[in-house]
């Protein structure tokens, strides 16, 4: 049990420090232009990585499973300019359906 609390408190404190670092030290001040140019591209780089890893990532392997058709359906819905709500629910329904069909 004390092991559990050691993990909970260490992870909590370190995560709070990681999240707080930028905004507490640099908050409200514009970054130098070159840094801004880099940080602007952080959004597409990280979002694309999050899409890729959450769709194809397994436990130290790449896997193709029911998540992929769900995310492809989301891509089609986005292309048809569906609202985000429909995109997200549609992806979950397609993935759940494929999983159910696969037994």
């Amino acid at each position, binding site marked *: 049990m004390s092991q*559990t*609390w050691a*993990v*909970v*408190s*260490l*992870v*909590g*404190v*370190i*995560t709070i420090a*990681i*999240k*707080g*670092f*930028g*905004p*507490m030290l640099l*908050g*409200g001040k*514009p*970054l130098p232009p*070159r840094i*801004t*140019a*880099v*940080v*602007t*591209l*952080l*959004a*597409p*780089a*990280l979002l*694309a990585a*999050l*899409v*890729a*890893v*959450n769709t*194809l*990532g397994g*436990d130290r*392997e*790449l896997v193709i499973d*029911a998540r992929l058709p*769900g*995310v492809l359906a*989301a*891509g089609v819905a986005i292309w048809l300019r569906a609202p*985000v709500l429909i*995109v*997200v*629910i*549609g*992806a*979950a329904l397609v*993935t*759940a359906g494929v*999983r159910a069909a696969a037994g």
Partner: protein
Amino acid sequence: MSDAARNERSHRDGIRAVAALAVAVVGFGVSFGVLARAAGMGSAAPIVMSMTTFAGSAQFAAASILSVGGTVASAVTAAVLLNARYGPIGVSVAPSLTGSGSSRFLHAQLTVDETWAVAAEGEGRFNPKVLLGAGVTLYLAWVGGTVLGVAFGDVIGDPSRWGLDAAFPALFLSLLIPQLRDRRAIGAAALGAGIALALTPFTPAGVPIVAASAGCLLGLRAEAGTGDEEEPRA
């Protein structure tokens, strides 16, 4: 969305932007509560962890390592690696947070992948009101889901049966596409996804996402192919 509408986005827009996802977050909160109890973490510790860490993947990693008898050091290391991306993410939102120290601290703690992504307004700007509205919504969903999971987990079952694991990449995709406005953004996205997929088989979880942030270093290069060469080349 027009630029004028963007500037006027409020807390409520933040809530609306993550409303669908909040359902999935409750589902994952439940499954974290169930897994953490099964891992022998008891009832209070999982809830405290959700309240303080507020980062799903890191909490799942820590609980699953404890459940197989892993050491404190390995559980903490895995969780910290998974949360390392919040370093650069925090730096990216910092210029948009103009409030007092305590306000910046609150916004920083509510900055997770989903809230950061919906608060993005392009050109490196973030809307603090959207961040706060979305952050409080997902925080309540995550902590509430954890409480439900600890209390009644066995009844609810596995959220992947409901396809909730596809909801996250779907949301990220819908937030990514509008960001792909120019060749540099497309290049950074391709590089980020490529790095993350290439590293996934070889590194602990979390490392691929952190390494993918290197895709933004394309920003050091002047705009390619437009003849706009004002910035010096790296």
